[in-house]
């Protein structure tokens, strides 16, 4: 009997290890042989730990399972049970998705290269090895893939700049410093399908003439670090990485670098400084990292999801990927539905689904059962959207047009008990804690921002104009998104939720 219990950090944080132990213990006590696989997560976090059993009809799920439920599951022969969910892939949250990047996540043993290959893995890399770098870059450009870290810059264009740059050494740097609250897609793919990232980076290396790669992975993700380290060892042993990638005679190898708890290192130039062993201070651009990046050499810096999506683009062709989506947002986006939500988790879908559908239909509204008040999209630097903007379709330009951003596609839901003045204050406080200190509007402005919001809270009407002006200064006068985008949550809270800002309400009336 084959039993799956996820090793994903969220599943483990909810007791998956104890469930896995109970399965083995119970099987031994009953004299049954169980093949236990620690898979990635299917992304339905409210059902974690989600135990699956392989049957003739497919994979049947049970969840959320606690260790105490396991004897009962054996008694029921993994059939009729109160926690039974039936066919896992028929659960509406799962069935409604378009899984391209996450096709294997939760399905396979994350560290089995054989299963990875059996499910389409490495075919993108094999195809890439037969293509010229120009054709490879053109394929990625044609797919319409844009940076999934938040900036949305076309991946192919970035690659082409690096490809054309001449240097004795070029680098592929994967930004796995996923510090935005409400986002966990990078973590999930690294824990659930690490070889997709390895393959994506190897393809990026072939396309740009880079032979070395780094994954800059945040220290807050101990499970992802462990899985990625092991994946690299196995990829190297199998000849996927090394002096001759899949026997092609072309070299690519990579290593994991662990961050040290600085949010700002998710910004690409800070990340490069940190990788080089310096303080994680933002660099001015130009020079672009594509021309002078890691160690002063031409460097591709891409987000985990961008890179992990490249293999499926190469496997199935640019046109297939490009055919999904809306406007200039092509392909799929793994939306992470989080916060106070009934059905939280990762939902990969073509661009274009409305925010309201994601929050109410897919997410099922709040976990508390209270009305949704606000939704923050794109992490701590993203805007708070009220219900009146719920018809906004998920897309880069579409969110920009409403004064927001999709960022890394985290959607954090708040119920009506949320105090938006407190959330605006927190945004400034967070910016003050995490500012690298390079730009004065960010370093000093964030501190002044906290004080100014406190003045508003005390009923000082004149402080509203000061805050607005301060936000404009931060927006225009900061080198990176930390100082530049902190005004998004602050000003959107002020604009859309005036009732929480007593003086703003008076001024408006």
């Amino acid at each position, binding site marked *: 009997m084959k039993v799956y219990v996820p090793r994903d950090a969220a599943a483990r944080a909810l007791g998956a290890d104890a469930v896995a132990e109970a399965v083995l213990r119970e099987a031994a006590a009953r004299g049954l042989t169980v093949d236990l696989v620690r898979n990635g997560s299917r992304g339905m976090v409210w059902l974690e730990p989600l135990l699956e059993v392989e049957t003739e009809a497919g994979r049947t799920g049970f969840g959320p399972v606690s260790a105490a439920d396991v004897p009962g599951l054996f008694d029921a022969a993994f059939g009729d049970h109160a926690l039974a969910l039936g066919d896992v892939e028929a659960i509406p949250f799962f069935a409604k998705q378009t899984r391209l990047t996450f096709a294997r996540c939760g399905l396979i043993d994350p560290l089995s290269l054989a299963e990875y290959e059996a499910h389409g893995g490495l075919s993108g890399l094999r195809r890439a090895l037969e293509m010229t770098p120009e054709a490879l870059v053109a394929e990625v450009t044609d797919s319409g893939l844009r940076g999934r870290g938040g900036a949305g810059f076309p991946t192919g264009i970035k690659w082409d700049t690096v490809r054309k740059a001449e240097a004795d050494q070029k680098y592929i740097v994967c930004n796995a410093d996923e510090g935005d609250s409400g986002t966990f897609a990078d973590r999930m793919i690294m824990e659930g399908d690490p070889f997709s990232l390895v393959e994506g980076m190897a393809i990026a290396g072939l396309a740009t003439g880079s032979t070395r790669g780094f994954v800059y992975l945040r220290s807050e993700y101990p499970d992802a670090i462990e899985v990625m380290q092991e994946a690299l060892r196995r990829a190297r042993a199998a000849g996927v990485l090394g002096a001759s990638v899949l026997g092609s005679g072309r070299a690519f190898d990579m290593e994991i670098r662990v961050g040290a708890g600085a949010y700002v290192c998710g910004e690409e130039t800070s990340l490069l400084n940190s990788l080089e062993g310096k303080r*994680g201070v933002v660099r001015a651009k130009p020079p672009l990292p594509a021309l002078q990046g890691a160690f002063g050499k031409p460097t591709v810096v891409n987000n985990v999801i961008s890179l992990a999506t490249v293999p499926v683009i190469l496997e199935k062709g640019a046109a297939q990927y490009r055919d999904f989506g809306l406007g200039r947002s092509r392909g799929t986006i793994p939306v992470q539905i*989080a916060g106070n939500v009934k059905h939280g988790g990762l939902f990969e879908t073509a661009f274009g689904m409305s925010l309201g559908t994601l929050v109410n239909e897919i997410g099922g509204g709040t976990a508390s059962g209270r009305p949704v008040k606000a939704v923050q999209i794109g992490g701590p630097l993203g805007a708070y959207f009220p219900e009146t903007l719920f018809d906004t379709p998920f897309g880069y330009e579409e969110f920009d047009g409403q004064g927001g951003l999709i960022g890394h596609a985290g959607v954090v839901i708040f119920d009506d008990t949320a105090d938006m003045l407190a959330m605006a204050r927190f945004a400034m406080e967070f910016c003050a804690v995490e500012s690298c200190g390079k730009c004065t509007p960010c370093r000093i402005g964030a501190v002044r921002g906290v004080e100014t919001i406190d003045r508003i809270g005390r009923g000082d009407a004149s402080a509203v104009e000061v805050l607005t002006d301060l936000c404009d200064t931060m927006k225009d006068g900061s080198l990176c998104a930390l100082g530049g985008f902190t005004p998004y949550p602050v000003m959107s809270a002020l604009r859309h939720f005036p009732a929480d800002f007593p003086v703003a309400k008076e001024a408006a009336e």
Partner: protein
Amino acid sequence: MSPSTPPSEAEIDAIVAAHMSMEGPMLPILHALQAAFGHVPQAAVPRIAQALNQTRAEVHGVVSFYHDFRDAPVTGRVVRLCRAEACQASGGAAVAEAVMQTFGIGWGESKGGVTLEPVYCLGLCACGPAAQVDGRLHGRVDAARIEALVAEGAA
């Protein structure tokens, strides 16, 4: 190497030397020192500076920039509670308040063998409030669960 014995220069040098073939060895060295000694000892700063041909001020600047690196080892339990938005949305602030009350400590403080630290996102945003107790992650925590986890490890 127990955290209570001050690390010797030879121990520090061995860790530094083990990383010298890497590109950009600074952070890997600092992580390795912290893993070995529970903190980045002050005595390591001039040794690293020497090995990497940097000034002591530069090395100190790097060590002090990052939240992760400690200047003294922590004894007892380390409770990290997520303060980020998704956990706030699911009641994280109230959990933090209650934990502070119970243990009589604020952010960054230690008392009675418990240290409380803020963390900004553990990637458990769909099962918050999230916490990390001595490195282990926990989802959907409340104050009682944190107290139980602290008591569990202390026993």
